[in-house]
């Protein structure tokens, strides 16, 4: 194992020298944890820091909100749709429950469902993309054709199709949102891996008789980390939007649960009299997606800087 790692490092160094890519302080370090370097560079950009600040704030609200909420999310505290008062700072919702408490309790579901869907979708997408790039035969064609089929569905419509058949369950949302990401991620990863497959260290690993699974996971994966990180950020942004939208349409958590999407659904008709119960979750979700997108943009910029090969 260690022999092949050294070979890989030497090969990478040579490739770098030939292509004029920044070989930097020891290619072995670069090879080992390329994503750390990208993250470090991304953090030097103002946009990444702003994004990180925003995301930390919204996640903190969602995680610690339930601990500081003044009322139970299901307790009735006032007249339905009444405005702000000393008892309820942001007033009461359409059923007379405290808007602030429901807001503080309602963020966790969207967060974990989006994160789970992103990890599931990107994980499968990476696997399919790398296997397709590595196989270069009928398997590549079959996988890409299957991708086209999933791509033909607008993302939200595929999720709704599954919900109509299997019911509004959170695992259905996690799985289908992940599946709608799969072909999009797979295309990017396949494209990125196609260059790597042709490199000498892959041929060397094949010659040594490494298992295919080890070549895909051990040789290809470490060399496509920068597009992978960008995809993770991008898909997380879209996951949050999709999951919140499904919940807003009424197919996420069901009443009387406190959930940002459901809050918007329940109170949207009373938006004229009591805007807060819609505005708070809208602001939180909007901030969160803008934050994740700023981080993603920072990572993408840092990745381009490090790669040197890819031009924007």
């Amino acid at each position, binding site marked *: 194992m260690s022999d092949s790692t050294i070979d890989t490092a030497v090969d990478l160094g040579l490739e770098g020298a030939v292509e004029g890519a920044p070989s930097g302080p020891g290619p072995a370090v670069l090879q080992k944890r390329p994503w750390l370097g990208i993250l470090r560079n991304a953090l030097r950009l103002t*946009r990444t820091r702003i994004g990180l600040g925003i995301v930390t704030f919204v996640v903190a609200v969602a995680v610690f909100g339930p601990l500081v909420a003044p009322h139970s999310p299901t307790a009735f505290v006032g007249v339905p749709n009444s405005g702000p008062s000393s008892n309820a700072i942001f007033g009461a919702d359409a059923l007379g429950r405290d808007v602030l408490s429901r807001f503080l309790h309602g963020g966790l579901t969207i967060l974990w469902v989006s994160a789970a869907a992103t990890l599931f979708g990107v994980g499968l997408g990476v696997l399919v993309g790398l296997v397709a790039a590595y196989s270069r035969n009928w398997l590549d064609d079959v996988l890409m*054709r299957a991708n*086209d*089929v999933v*791509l*033909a*569905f*607008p*993302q*939200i*419509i*595929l999720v*709704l*199709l*599954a*919900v*109509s*058949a*299997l*019911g509004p369950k959170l695992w259905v949302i996690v799985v289908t949102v992940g599946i709608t990401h799969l072909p999009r991620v797979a295309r990017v990863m396949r494209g990125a891996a196609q260059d790597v497959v042709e490199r000498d260290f892959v041929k060397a690993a094949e010659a040594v008789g490494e298992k295919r699974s080890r070549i895909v996971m051990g040789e290809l994966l470490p060399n496509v980390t920068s597009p992978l990180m960008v995809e993770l950020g991008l898909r997380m*942004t879209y996951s*949050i*939007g*999709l999951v*919140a*939208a499904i919940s*807003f*349409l*009424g*197919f996420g958590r069901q009443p009387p649960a406190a959930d940002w999407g459901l809050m*918007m659904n329940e109170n*949207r008709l009373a*938006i*004229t009299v009591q*805007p807060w119960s*819609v*505005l708070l979750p*809208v602001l939180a*979700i*909007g901030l969160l*997606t*803008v934050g*994740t*997108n*700023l981080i993603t*943009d920072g990572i993408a910029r840092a990745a381009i800087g490090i790669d040197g090969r890819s031009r*924007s």
Partner: protein
Amino acid sequence: MSGKMILRRIALGILTLWLVSLVVFAAVIALPGDAATAILGKEATPARVAALREQLHLNESVVTQYTQWLKGILTFDFGNSAATQQPVTQLLNDRVANSAFLVFVASIVAIPLSILIGVWTAMKRDRPADHITSTITLVLAALPEFVIGICLVLIFATGLFHIFPAVSLLAPGEKAWQDPQVVVLPAATLVIAVVPYISRIMRGSMIEVLESEYVTMARLKGLPERQVIWRHAVPNAIVPAIQVTALQLAWMAGGVVVVEYVFSYPGIGAALVDAVANRDMPVVQTVTMLAAGVYVLLNLLADLATIFVTPRLRTATR
């Protein structure tokens, strides 16, 4: 040569649509337990369950069910709505027209606007105007469409101003274009959702073209800058933007679902949400096939358009 390429592309589109139909059909198979009971609920009378079983051909083999269903779709017979017993075509007719009008209005605003923004920011490259626009588009690109829609409602309908209606209500039988006011905010939402993507691609491709030799050549010939930009640079810069534009227009086929729901706009998107809530599978399947058809068609058109405007591809052997 190009004819063969176009035929191959069309055949691929049809193959994709056929595979899509398998997935859409599988949704009924995936219903837990008896499909007819699952759709109608446990309180349904045995007679209604039997009627629905008959309509969905549930008493026959899966293959027969599928071929009957596919035959229906190909002859524009989508069966009856499980919720209202009306034919699906009758139920969706006006709604398809309303949604098409919404997407049409959004497109004819979004496409020229994106090109203008892309060209303008490319010309102001790295100057404050470019940086500010790029930050705004980065933020807008991240926002989910319902966030944009609800913000527009709060700004233009209920909170700050009272210019446009917050809900797009139409009298029965009235079409959206007979009361254009109801289209303004939903269309604006779609425009704001797609413009960031198209204008960014347009900017990138315009920058590349502006650095090309033939633009320098045109400038050296002493052509007025206006002519260099609009006659020489823009037509070439648009080519890469065609694919993204098609993808964004296809995205609208799904985007209308949430946008129509926000504004209670009487289109197919809002109908789909109702149908999912009621487990009205014939309606769900029809709208899904429609959206997938729009996607495949738009991509096909984009590919053909790219072939026609790129001489290299037009004459290529493949």
